[in-house]
């Protein structure tokens, strides 16, 4: 049995943000995650947008924490060395009804505290984005794009550096009251943790975790969104996220086109309630629909630009017959003291993750004395990206380590040294997708055709792994069956 003060369940963006926020204080903190890496659920499967906060009902937690999150995001990314770019965002009106929706959105945004929202007419839209149709648009200058994987990894690394212990591949199967101490006994994977507080950041499974702890009052309805990834055509086609005016009641933001921080474009998401919380399949019907709708928004995209698909699942509290958004629940349960539930953290959960974490901190500080550590290290440095360096810097890097001169990933220009760093970081990458999310290899148009074999070879030769031990993601996703001979 392991003793801890705080047990965080789930290492998505919210779990990692809570871990990092609480690591400022003199506490023993443990985080458990059922998958093999951070950001394995909804946090790694979304549009990668920092929202401005005009989409949510005034007075809601979503609105308050979303706007607050937007304001602090850039400096957090700077502190944690996470790629971030303020692009702004356009919502396009195709008819008068759309324009009315946008006007109401601006009003709503003002109430929420979003700044600088305004409408532009068809002429200005044409001047700014001649490739997009529409009779006008709303501009949201404070919307931004970022790398959600790097963000979660950064929070995780920084939390770990500040003393949080993470356990992966550790699904929670029991949450019992500890009769002697008044806390909880939590079974996660092969371990049992004795803890005073449980912080439920389990996303799609937050209802089930709450139920395990004896609070059976929530239900999460999984709502899938499918995406296309296009090649690096953002420079030539679109450099700012473009959304349609949101139709009321869809419970999503509509199919939009967003440039990624890396210069790709993504199309999506769809919005479809499903049964299985882990079914991240893409379907032929939705893929067909996505492309057709996106082409209406941006006629210059073509099928040959497609390099991949993925799907993410929203943790919605609103059942299918209701639709729309229900507000975040973030509270300590009266009937179960010590259990802090975070339920229904869907969009704008990523944007709001740091304010959410601070809200958890405040809930805790009402219960126990939080004493700040003197040696808290707020800054974290990411892996140096060879491709982003100047020629002179690149030469310096190669001089410092010749492995910077060996390009492992041809599409993204990732060097052997960067792959090695992803593996050797504390806590390091242990699967191909973990390497991918840290060093960005295999994410290009050849999807690992060039670098996968090289990375596997490196893991075998230099890190003593057997081929059959190398996984794509969690255990069960073994890539190979052993040696040929």
């Amino acid at each position, binding site marked *: 049995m392991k003793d801890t003060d705080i047990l965080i369940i789930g290492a998505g963006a919210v779990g990692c943000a809570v871990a990092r926020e609480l690591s400022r204080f003199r506490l023993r903190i443990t985080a458990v995650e059922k998958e093999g890496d951070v950001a394995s659920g909804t946090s790694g499967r979304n549009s990668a947008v920092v929202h401005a906060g005009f989409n949510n009902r005034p007075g809601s937690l979503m609105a308050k924490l979303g706007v607050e999150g937007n304001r602090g995001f850039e400096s957090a990314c700077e502190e944690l060395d996470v790629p971030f770019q303020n692009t702004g965002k356009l919502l396009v009106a195709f008819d008068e009804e759309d324009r009315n929706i946008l006007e109401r959105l601006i009003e709503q945004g003002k109430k929420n505290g979003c700044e600088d929202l305004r409408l532009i007419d068809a002429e200005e839209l044409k001047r700014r984005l001649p490739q997009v149709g529409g009779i006008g648009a709303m501009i949201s200058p404070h919307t931004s794009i970022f790398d959600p994987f790097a963000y979660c990894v950064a929070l995780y690394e920084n939390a770990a550096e500040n003393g949080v212990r993470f356990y992966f591949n550790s699904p929670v199967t029991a949450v019992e009251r500890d009769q002697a101490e008044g806390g909880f006994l939590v079974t996660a994977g092969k371990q049992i943790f004795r803890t005073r507080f449980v912080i439920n950041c389990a996303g799609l499974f937050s209802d089930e975790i709450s139920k395990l702890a004896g609070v059976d009052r929530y239900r999460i309805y999984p709502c899938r969104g499918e995406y*296309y*990834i296009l090649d690096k055509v953002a420079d030539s086609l679109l450099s700012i996220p473009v959304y349609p005016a949101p139709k009321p009641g869809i419970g999503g933001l509509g199919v939009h086109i967003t440039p990624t921080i890396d210069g790709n474009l993504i199309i999506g998401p769809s919005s479809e309630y499903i049964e299985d919380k*882990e*079914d*991240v*399949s*893409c*379907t*032929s019907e939705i*893929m067909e629909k996505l492309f057709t709708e996106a082409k209406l928004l941006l006629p210059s995209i073509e099928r*040959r630009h*497609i*390099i*991949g*698909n*993925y*799907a993410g699942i929203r943790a919605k509290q609103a059942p299918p017959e209701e639709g729309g958004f229900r507000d975040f629940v973030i509270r300590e349960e009266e009937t179960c003291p010590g259990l802090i539930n975070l339920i229904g953290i869907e969009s704008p959960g990523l944007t709001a993750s740091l304010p959410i974490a601070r809200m958890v901190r405040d809930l805790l500080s009402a219960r126990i004395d939080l004493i700040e550590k003197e040696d808290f290290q707020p800054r974290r440095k990411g892996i140096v990206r060879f491709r982003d360096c100047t*020629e002179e810097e*690149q*030469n310096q890097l*190669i*001089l410092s380590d*010749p*492995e*910077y*001169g*060996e*390009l492992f990933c*041809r*599409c993204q*220009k990732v*060097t052997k040294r960067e792959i090695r760093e992803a593996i050797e970081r504390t806590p390091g990458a242990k699967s191909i997708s973990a390497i991918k999310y840290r060093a960005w290899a295999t994410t290009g*148009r*050849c*999807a*690992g*055709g*060039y670098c*996968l*074999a090289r990375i*596997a*070879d490196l893991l*075998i030769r230099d890190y003593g792994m057997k*081929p059959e031990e190398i*996984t*794509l*993601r*969690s*255990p*069960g*996703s*073994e*890539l*190979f*069956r*052993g*040696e*040929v*001979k």
Partner: protein
Amino acid sequence: MSGTIVIIGAGPGGLAAAKGARLAGADRVIILERNEEPGGILNQCIHDGFGLLRYGKHLSGPEYAMHAIAEAEQCGAEILPGHHVLRIEPDSRGHSVIAASRNGLGKFEADAVILSTGCRERTRGAISIPGPRPAGIYTAGTAQNLINLRNILPGKRAVILGSGDIGMIMARRMRLEGMEVAAVIEILPEPAGLSRNVSQCLYDFDIPIHCRHTVSRIFGKQRVEAVEISKVDEQRKPIKGSEQIIACDTLILSVGLIPENETAETAGVNLDPKTNGAMTDAFLETSVRGIFACGNCRKIMDLADYVSEQGETAGYNAVARIQGNAMKAWDRERGSDLRKGFPEPGTVTCTLCPNGCQVKLINGIASGNRCPRGADFAAREAVLPMRTVTTTVKTADGELVPVHLDRPVRKDAVLPLSREISRMRISSSMKCGEAVGSAAWNDTEVRVLSSCGR
């Protein structure tokens, strides 16, 4: 003064371009190669079928590479492996090629540049197969790399989508290494690759091929567990109600090659928007004066021999451009003379060379063969079919050496002999052509020869 030619990529195109440029009088020819060894994709193509046109011999890929490397070096070309080209910049003299290596960023000034950067494979993402994204989905070339160069077994039971030549060659290769191949799925009415490969890679191993079908869904959260295949209609869309499930742990994709032109793009070379190939005039010069392109980065070709032939022309023309001489036109879009698709019923497909002649034997008289060897092959096929075998042998330090047998063997000996050769261990890598050992099955005894290309 005939200047410096910088060639990007030391595959068959680049190596032949170097030869062509030196023979035409280039002062200096440098080939920049990103791999640690020259040869390009040939190094992982351990099967035979290379070199008949260019060298008049039956060679494996590594052996073909060895010939091409030797020719380039004998002509005085400098091959620089471990150099990954980042971009091409214009300069006062012509172009500068910037490449990263373990020694730093190198700047190679060139009077003319030849692109021979090859191609990459179309991926699962590009063809949008529905389903989740489990482990166990590989392009045929990646599977070939894993099995032939890195001694890594990708799976136990594969379905192959697409019947291009690499897909079919990998079907046979996986069978020889003990994997099951459940089926090959092809969306077109006929196999896409050579009839020779349909015959010797699929028919020989009883691997079923389903034409007018596609993989309509992938199953498996963590690792591939099965695929669903469907018949397709005239628009190549899956037909509802025609679904079948095939259990497998691996899906191999052989769904097309795309010219690789990221380097060309940095120089502003015009690409064909449909194929991504570098567009050239009849003299293989791209839209940027002084930059030439040859081989698969220009247009996907069926044989390495054709790539070499074109590379040599590009090398010649690059020098002619500098000297102001007349260039040679490339007027042969080759490949139409190779027999593709299903073999004709009632004939024997001669597998001795890529032509794949469809030989008909009536009362001992052969027809349909383009050379006398086709008649012999057909006659032999009726009595005792014989096959060549290529595979690899493991050395004590874990390296794989490509090998072939000293002669063709009975068809029914192919699998048992391959199994026995798989168990062989040798102390160290051998020179090309040296015997690494012998193998026997029933009354068939063969010597196993290295075809490592060194």
